[in-house]
């Protein structure tokens, strides 16, 4: 008889409670090693869990929408040699799940005692059976095992929490007398305490019935629905997965962060000449040196000088968490939508190394092959539209980061040098920041410092 293996979620990076979005196999399917079994979705990436061995799928332990973490059971696999399974049932696709596939031992325990005792007493003596139940079975619960006894929440709210897999015992309520409201559940799913993804939050919003108004937070009125077909032909195309995920994240940042955008411009005439030199050499080696690598180095220098820009507010919003690392998010436009891979330890890398890494990560982003690890941990973000055009824009801070640097296309402009107008290559920059953390003067200093560095690239090495 074949060996039975339980396949669980491997260590795919620092994540927890990510939803299963696709299941590629069904009980009875024969799979080879490395065949994708299920697809998980974390932050803005998806990842497949490959089969660890060849075999026959015996029983699924997850369903679409389940939240899993490292070690969560995915399915039960009969490893090969087991292909000679019991003959398929006549009318069934699904094999029996008895025996090894149901390893949960029934908990026939003492709880049945009172039932049996009182009922048998009744049988002999003429009493009504006292309240009692069968033996409890708890091991098969699919949601949080938490008992909601004593939690101050109405039945509807408890059901919503069950649907969303949220543990109400870990949530504090904002309603009268600490009652946990529907809005608390939605916030709990979205917030850091809930630890769930935007997808679940979106589900929460739609499940809440009150709709986007409740989902958006404090009573923001919803845009009324319109029947556009009254005005002309229309076509509905679903958003891509990335767009569906990034939308709520952007909305959350926009609503939570009081944004100010500070514009400045840097004279990059000399920097650009230097970059071209490097790029010519690099091209021969198969990569490109872009302005972005310099912006990253300059940003790290500015972050060191102004550490508030490399901080986050605590959840209680009464303190700042200063980060001693410099991981920069880089917004990348892909056919599926906007993704923000993270380049780690930018302070320890040179322009050429950064250029190579940017090339590689951008390629992976466009192919949709980023892993959750690629997308986590940024302390500051750069969004460059330089390849396209524009004169200025307002990037949205990627909360809980506190600032984001936007750049558009540089252009030759006449600059007064004190005696004459001279043509200089000017780069407009747009720095959006969280005004709770950074005030305008500090932002102006940061932007000036950044421009100053870009204007004389030699300072970058100081």
């Amino acid at each position: 008889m074949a060996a039975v293996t339980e396949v669980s979620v491997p260590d795919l990076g620092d994540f927890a409670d990510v939803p299963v979005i696709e299941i590629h196999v069904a009980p009875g399917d024969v799979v080879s090693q490395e065949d994708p079994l299920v697809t998980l979705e974390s932050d803005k990436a998806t990842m497949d869990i490959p089969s660890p061995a060849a075999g026959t799928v015996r029983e699924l332990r997850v369903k679409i929408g389940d939240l899993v973490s490292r070690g969560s059971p995915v399915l039960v696999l009969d490893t090969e040699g087991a292909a000679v399974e019991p003959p398929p049932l006549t009318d069934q696709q699904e094999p029996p799940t008895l025996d090894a596939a149901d390893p949960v031992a029934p908990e026939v325990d003492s709880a049945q005692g009172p039932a049996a005792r009182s009922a048998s007493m009744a049988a002999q003596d003429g009493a009504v059976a006292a309240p009692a139940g069968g033996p409890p079975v708890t091991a098969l619960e699919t949601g949080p095992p938490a008992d909601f006894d004593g939690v101050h929440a109405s039945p509807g709210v408890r059901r919503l929490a069950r649907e969303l897999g949220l543990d109400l015992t870990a949530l504090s309520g904002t309603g009268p007398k600490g009652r946990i409201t529907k809005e608390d559940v939605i916030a709990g799913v979205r917030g850091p305490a809930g630890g769930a993804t935007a997808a679940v939050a979106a589900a929460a919003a739609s499940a809440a019935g009150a709709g986007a108004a409740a989902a958006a937070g404090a009573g923001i009125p919803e845009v009324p629905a319109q029947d556009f077909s009254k005005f002309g032909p229309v076509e509905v195309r679903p958003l891509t997965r990335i767009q569906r995920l990034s939308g709520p994240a952007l909305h959350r940042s926009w609503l939570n962060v009081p944004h100010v955008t500070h514009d400045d411009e840097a004279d990059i005439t000399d920097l650009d000449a230097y970059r071209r030199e490097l790029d010519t050499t690099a091209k021969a080696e198969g990569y490109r040196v872009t302005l972005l690598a310099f912006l990253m180095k300059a940003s790290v220098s500015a972050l060191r000088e102004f550490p508030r820009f490399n901080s986050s507010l605590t959840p209680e919003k009464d303190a700042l968490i200063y980060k001693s690392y410099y991981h920069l998010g880089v917004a990348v436009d892909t056919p599926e939508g906007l993704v923000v891979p993270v380049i780690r330890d930018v302070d320890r890398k040179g322009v050429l190394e950064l250029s190579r890494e940017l090339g590689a990560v951008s390629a992976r982003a466009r192919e949709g092959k980023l892993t959750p690890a690629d997308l986590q941990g940024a302390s500051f973000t750069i969004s460059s539209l330089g390849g396209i055009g524009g004169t200025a824009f307002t990037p949205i801070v990627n909360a809980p980061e506190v600032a984001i640097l936007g750049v558009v296309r540089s252009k030759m402009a006449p600059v007064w040098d004190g005696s004459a107008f001279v043509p200089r290559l000017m780069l407009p920059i747009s720095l959006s920041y969280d005004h709770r953390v950074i005030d305008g003067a500090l932002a102006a200093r940061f932007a000036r410092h950044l421009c100053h560095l870009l204007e004389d690239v030699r300072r970058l090495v100081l």
Partner: protein
Amino acid sequence: MENQTAEVLVLGAGPGGYTAAFRAADLGKRVVLVDSEPTLGGVCLNVGCIPSKALLHAAKVIAETKEMSENGIAFGPPSIDLDRLRAWKEGVVGRLTGGLAGLARQRKVTTIRGYGRFTSPHELRVDLADGGATTVGFEQAIIAAGSQAVTLPFMPVSDPRIIDSTGALELAEVPRRLLVVGGGIIGLEMATVYHELGAKITVVELLDQLIPDADRDVVTPLAKRVGRQYENVYLKTTLTDVQATPEGLVVSFDGAKAPATDTFDRILVAVGRRPNGKLIGAEQAGVTVDDFGFIGVSKQMRTNVAHIFAIGDVVGQPMLAHKAMHEAKVAAEVAAGKNSYFDARAIPSVAYTDPEVAWAGATENEARAAGVGYGKGVFPWAASGRSLTLGRSEGLTKVLFDEATGRVIGCGIVGPSAGDLISEAALAIEMGADAADIALTVHPHPTLSETVALAAEAFEGTITDLYLPRRS
């Protein structure tokens, strides 16, 4: 019949079974519903809750007209036509079960009439009521196999004068002297009916109070009333023997106040119900059934076999239709992939006796046993204008509050329509309401529902309809 397949098989078409089947169908599942009876609805609709309520209504009409004669409206003694009464009761049942059949058709739920037993974790064999057998293959199953009346081992097996609740509802005759074994809800409801129809009633109960699950103070008004009405109520008494003789059933008692023997024309045995867990081949499916026939389930109503659920009487007390229906929805929703749980905090119980007795959440007995610090507000219906205008004054509304949080944790009510009043308390418990929440909710006056608010006011110390010494 050709073999069938189902995405969800439901075994048993009582309130739990049909609810599970309909909910699963509404969630897009292909459902097969198996039951051995000719009509849907199970014990509740066919031989339980519904026909008994029809007869209890008849009993109430008799009782009220009789009592009203003292207040100037006299009808004379009732003329009782048992055949017409039975036909009316059956008409009510037929209307409801027919409605269920229609609901099943509209949902395209396949119903199979026959006795189902599991033969494997994915197959059920059905011995068809019309002869022959068929097999239903299923992906998931919901066991809603219910319960049946417990019989007493020393009873003469086949004597037609010994009946259970089903037999009592058949209304074959009104015996001159009826012995009701078991002073619980079912026994006392049937005693209420037969008393008003003219039988002399004797009730025998093992424990020291009627309806032992409820608090004594809530049962006392009922106990007093039936103590006056019935021939005998023997508490702390057991039957030791029954001999069938042509003259009657000679019963031997063991109890302080009971005679050694007495003779009755009929005996109604209502000593509890036994789950049907052992009668369905559950072990062939790998489902664990305990010695008494209960099937253990999780809060998602799963048995130890992940794709087989169980609900209703077969999973434990209280054996009540409304509990089964809520469990049914959980099971059907989980089977359809939803993350539902049975999270209820209060399952109301109602005895439709006269007066009715109803309770929800914790009783005082339970709160004391659990060591919960509680306070209570009590409102006697003697101070309720509405109750007095019904010609009744013995009722009582008692609400229990958690001392730490002030929230409602339980409620007991006795009096006419108590069963309809208890829902407010159940909602209060589920919503986490406290005394002020109920007391400050404007209740219409004069009503019986007002008594719930007045009990809360009594706890709060804001009541003016009673004079209560100031609480220290």
